[in-house]
């Protein structure tokens, strides 16, 4: 037989003035399981708590009901009082007779008192079905995995490593650096991208707590928060990095020329290459898709010139396994292909380029030595038309959203054009100027006033060729007239899109992504760096388009989250998690689909009754479960229950009145 103690609080006058506490005590004492019913002025005060502790011991209580303020206020306080008296803290129930009765029915003392009594009845009934629960403690492996080595991944890795937590940084391409390595000067301060990025890249390479695995990809992730196991495929580079000194003899002699992705295919690289001179690691890889030795068994020049004997044509992909506790995903972005803009003659006219191509042209280390050139004839353009929102905010041809950064980099491009070609003029077709950021509006003003870039409000309708010029037709809504600009070069600010690979990656990590392919955060406002899966975090453009300041801020936030997670040897968790009773589980897996956190996995257990056959049942990973209870409600076999809110507990509450 349960022995319940009821402790009713006056809360000074807060409760006592509107609820007849003595009657409450008298009525609740009559409940069968109630051993003692006590009132006190301030239950949360020390003497109040002492009364509870004393009663627990003296009356050998099996559960405790405190009738006072909202459990959201003092549940923790009273739980602690229970533990102090040697009782399991989860045997507490709180009847909320202040927020739910004395404060909201101040005109009807009888009704408020009746209600208070009912609320206590419910709490008593529930408490009888309470079970002893224990905080869950999950061991953590203190190593982080960072996927993607753009500025986001670099920043996150450095911040985590600086806290002396080992990091494994996995980068798909031969070098870290990402898109930022392709940029010239960066808004809003116009500092040189390489100057601020390369020191960080070098830090990554030399950091004692960072293990950089370039030219590789994560192919599997198992486990749960604090206890993940990752499989990484390291692609064959055909160069033994341990021997290679990065001397460059190989790529100077290699006869095969391949379009150079780093320079947006404006010039060529070799089949054995480092993507750019400041690459980290600064060791070449052989592009197996183009190397004639690997394709046809002919050549091998690089191997011959390499004095270190670093070339190894027999090298195979390698699978590396790492145990880690948390993951930061920072796979960045791609750029939208403007081909659907047929009315602009995209693909037909050479002198229409994308913004990133322009960025490479004006870069000092770019293919044209920092001076923009017309791809058609190599002439330096004088009149350059920039068109914004290409593919962005265009439901018909591209995507619905705003890419967020193109307004700013277009303003930057107008300024850079002016710096590089003094007698040039920039015309910018735009729909809006989105410059919300520190110093951003001021930066746009610089483009408009100092650079005298002409902003024309309207989308371009058509581009056609006239002699060696491109005629760009649009409307200037500001004067309400049609305009045509005779352009030497047209630059398209193409939309930022999610990496093609994101859905695959999301599936293998067990996280979700939105309809555009961006990885989804747990809450758009309050948990913008976490995913719904505990221990997996997002940084940079892989979550949504953003500029470098925002990217770096999010990356550092990820690092803080990781460090927080790793702050103890184990993680403590609320015990309010679901449990599967495998005896009843029919293996329908409805719970698996419904769980928003992917906390439920399946396992095979013997059929029982001596049978050798196996059956599939669900299993909740309590490290991952957040305790929402969706699975409990969906389970037809009533095989799952959520501790603290079990069916018997709630049914008891319902039938108590």
């Amino acid at each position, binding site marked *: 037989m349960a022995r319940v103690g009821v402790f009713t609080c006056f809360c000074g006058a807060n409760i006592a003035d509107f609820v007849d506490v003595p009657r409450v005590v008298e009525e609740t004492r009559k409940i069968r399981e109630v051993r003692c019913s006590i009132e006190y002025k301030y239950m949360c005060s020390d003497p109040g708590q002492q009364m509870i502790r004393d009663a627990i011991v003296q009356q050998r209580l099996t559960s405790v009901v405190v009738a006072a303020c909202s459990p959201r206020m003092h549940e923790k306080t009273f739980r602690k009082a229970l533990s102090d008296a040697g009782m399991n803290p989860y045997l507490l129930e709180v009847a909320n007779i202040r927020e739910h009765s004395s404060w909201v029915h101040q005109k009807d003392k009888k009704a408020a008192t009746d209600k208070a009594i009912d609320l206590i009845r419910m709490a008593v009934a529930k408490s009888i079905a309470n079970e002893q629960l224990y905080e869950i403690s999950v061991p953590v492996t203190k190593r982080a995995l960072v996927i993607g080595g753009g500025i986001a991944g670099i920043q996150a890795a450095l911040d985590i490593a600086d806290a002396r937590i080992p990091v494994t940084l996995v980068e798909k391409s031969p070098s870290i650096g990402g898109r930022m390595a392709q940029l010239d000067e960066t808004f809003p301060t116009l500092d040189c991208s390489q100057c601020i990025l390369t020191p960080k890249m070098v830090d990554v390479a030399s950091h004692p707590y960072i293990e950089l695995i370039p030219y590789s990809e994560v192919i599997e992730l198992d486990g749960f928060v604090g206890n993940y196991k990752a499989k990484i495929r390291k692609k064959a580079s055909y160069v033994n990095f341990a021997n290679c000194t990065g001397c460059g003899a190989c790529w100077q002699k290699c006869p095969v020329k391949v379009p150079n992705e780093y320079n947006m295919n404006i010039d060529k690289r070799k089949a054995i290459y480092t993507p750019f001179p400041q690459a980290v690691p600064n060791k070449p890889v052989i592009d197996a898709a183009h190397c004639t030795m690997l394709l046809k068994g002919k050549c091998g020049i690089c191997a011959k010139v390499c004095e270190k004997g670093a070339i190894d044509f027999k090298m195979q992909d390698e699978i590396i396994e790492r145990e880690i506790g948390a993951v930061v995903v920072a796979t960045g972005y791609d750029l939208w292909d403007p081909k659907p803009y047929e009315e602009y003659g995209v693909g037909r006219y050479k002198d229409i380029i994308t913004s990133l191509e322009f960025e490479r042209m004006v870069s000092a280390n770019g293919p044209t030595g920092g001076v923009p050139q017309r791809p058609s004839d190599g002439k330096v353009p004088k009149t350059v038309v920039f068109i914004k929102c290409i593919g962005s905010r265009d439901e018909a041809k591209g995507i619905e959203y705003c890419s967020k950064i193109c307004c700013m980099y277009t303003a930057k491009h107008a300024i850079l054009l002016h710096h590089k070609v003094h007698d040039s003029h920039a015309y910018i077709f735009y729909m809006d100027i989105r410059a919300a950021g520190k110093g951003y509006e001021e930066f746009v003003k610089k483009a408009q006033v100092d650079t005298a870039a002409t902003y024309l409000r309207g989308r371009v309708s058509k581009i056609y060729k006239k002699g060696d010029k491109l005629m760009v037709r649009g409307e200037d809504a500001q004067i309400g007239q049609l305009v045509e600009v005779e352009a030497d070069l047209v630059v398209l600010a193409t939309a930022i899109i999610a990496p093609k690979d994101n859905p695959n990656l999301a599936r293998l990590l067990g996280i979700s992504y939105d309809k555009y392919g961006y990885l989804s955060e747990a809450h758009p406002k309050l948990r913008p760096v976490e995913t719904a899966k505990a221990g997996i975090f997002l940084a940079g453009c892989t979550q949504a388009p953003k500029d470098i300041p925002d990217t770096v801020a999010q990356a550092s936030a990820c690092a803080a989250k990781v460090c927080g997670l790793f702050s103890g040897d184990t993680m403590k968790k609320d015990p309010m998690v679901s449990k599967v009773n495998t005896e009843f589980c029919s293996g329908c897996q409805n719970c698996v689909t419904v769980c*928003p956190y992917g906390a439920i996995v399946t396992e095979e257990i013997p059929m029982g009754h001596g049978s050798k056959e196996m059956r599939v049942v669900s299993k909740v990973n309590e490290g991952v479960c957040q305790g*929402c*209870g969706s699975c409990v409600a969906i389970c037809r076999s009533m095989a799952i229950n959520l501790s603290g809110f079990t069916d018997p507990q*709630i049914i008891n509450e319902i039938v108590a009145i």
Partner: protein
Amino acid sequence: METEVKETKGQVVSAENPGIVAPADWQPVIMGILCNWCSYAGSDLTGTSRIQYPPNIRIIRVPCSSRVDPWFIIKSLQTSADGVLISGCHPGDCHYISGNYYARRRFLVTKKLLNFVGYHENRIQFSWVSAAEGPKFAKVVAKVTEDIKKLGPLHKYKKENLK
């Protein structure tokens, strides 16, 4: 189905079953099942703001509206309550990402089923109340109480049995 409560000889009659009557001063009991993060917090705010509402509701706290098993609703109507109010976070605001979407779907099905077996649809209501919507919670409770009063009692002499 009748929606207005009939009063005959100082008694109120159930909308569903003319055999169920209660004294004229009868007060309905409403079972309120609220999610911890939004609606329960909202109802706490109603209290801290001292906004007054009818005392007929009895509140049960659950982590998320998706925890609400249809069984809870049925059991409530069978044993103790004349009406049920389920309240959770606004769409898109669920603390557990998407729980309230499941809850909403499940709730609609349950409501149809109960309606089919003869309960008036107003006996089972659903609302979205956020942690900031103290005044809204009071309004919702007042409305549900009003609706249920119109429908009359659901249990023969229930209150009398208990007391």
